């Protein structure tokens, strides 16, 4: 199986590489459209600021490529947010894969949300064998509200989407590669899709 992690300058890709290795697979980093198109599985990571990340994607034409991919694609954290219609962060137009707009938590809660929170209302093969209310590691200031494509819910200030799915596209707000053995199991589920 060929696993490609999209390389566009987003931080902490090494942790995803290591997690995939612990699962017994190997991944390659690439920003080459042909290599990404040819992959069996594509992981779209992301840490940092939305408008800057989108600019990086645009510079390499990946913003056009990603929505056309046919194999399973997994956006993580900012990766998931960039797959939405729009993000309030830097007033950024997204890839439009998930039909929802990303907005910011209010100052009624500490921002960023940082730490372990539970996921529930699980609705996807991504969560095969995963019990309701397992804890996942999250670090984020912006969130995707609940929508038709929500496949996992988390509550921080309000209920929001901690995972989304649309056809072959999957996204999690949490970091499966940093969420202990259960997180690794979710990453493993994606690789088996």
């Amino acid at each position, binding site marked *: 199986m060929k696993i490609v992690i999209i390389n566009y300058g987003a931080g902490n890709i090494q942790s995803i590489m290591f997690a995939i290795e612990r699962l017994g697979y190997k991944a390659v980093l690439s920003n080459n459209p042909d290599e990404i198109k040819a992959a069996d599985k594509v992981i779209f990571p992301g840490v940092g600021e939305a408008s800057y990340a989108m600019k990086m994607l645009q510079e390499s034409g990946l913003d056009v490529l990603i929505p056309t991919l046919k194999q399973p694609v997994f956006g993580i954290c900012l990766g998931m947010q960039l797959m939405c219609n729009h993000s309030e962060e830097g007033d950024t137009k997204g890839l439009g894969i998930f039909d929802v707009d990303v907005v910011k938590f209010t100052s009624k809660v*500490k921002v960023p*949300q940082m730490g372990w*929170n539970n996921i529930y209302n699980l609705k996807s093969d991504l969560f095969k064998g995963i019990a309701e209310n397992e804890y996942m590691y999250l670090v984020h200031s912006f969130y995707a509200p609940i929508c038709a494509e929500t496949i996992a819910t988390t509550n921080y200030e309000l209920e929001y989407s901690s995972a989304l799915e649309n056809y072959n596209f999957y996204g999690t707000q949490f970091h499966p590669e940093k969420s202990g053995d259960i997180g690794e199991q979710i990453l493993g589920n994606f690789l088996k899709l």
Partner: protein
Amino acid sequence: MLTKRIIPCLDIKNGRTVKGVNFVDLRDAGDPVELAKIYSDEGADELVFLDISATEERRRTLVDLVRKVASTINIPFTVGGGISAVSDVEVLLQNGADKVSINSSAVKNPQLINDLAQKFGSQCIVVAIDAKQIDGEWIVHLVGGKVPTEIRLFDWAQEVEQRGAGEILFTSMDHDGTKNGFANEALAKLSELVNIPIIASGGAGNIQHFVDTFVDGKADAALAASVFHFKEIEIKTLKKELKNNNIEVRI
């Protein structure tokens, strides 16, 4: 619900884990990678690696160790000690660290916080603050608590938030190593003043101290070293007791 976090801190010197009483008299408590794995398996929510000799000896942080830890464990970890430039942070994050912690270098060059937050995002920038009370006033100290500044803790905390810190790790030098409990009054005040997570550090001696720092100190996370390294408190037992006290934890 977002849970309160338990964070073992591994102080590193010459590639080994050490922990001093009031930062002096270092004792050897083992191999950092091995300890990291044990803590991760026992239910630690995060780990912090602090190269405590780094600032003094002007040594750069431990990239090899970061790689080994990142390849072994699947929970987040922070690396601190001797970080004074954007390039220091870049190499640590590239090798698998999730966050970096800066302390003295932020006091000497506050713009560093802005630069790091802009380049890597606030979520991976922890500002560590060591402080002790002098004539009733909490004063920021440098170099592992040895050198006082003229900066007030609460002013500095607000400033680092404004500059883009994602989290504050507050160590009370008056409490560190005493095992008499955390500085809960100051912690609660910090939590009210700023809107980013606060990690309590310094003074953990028993399970009740953790309960108190989450309830009275309003801390988002609690960090400790020796009570974990020398197995005076087991993380599993600690989390069970916190849950019994109606504190949300990941079990």
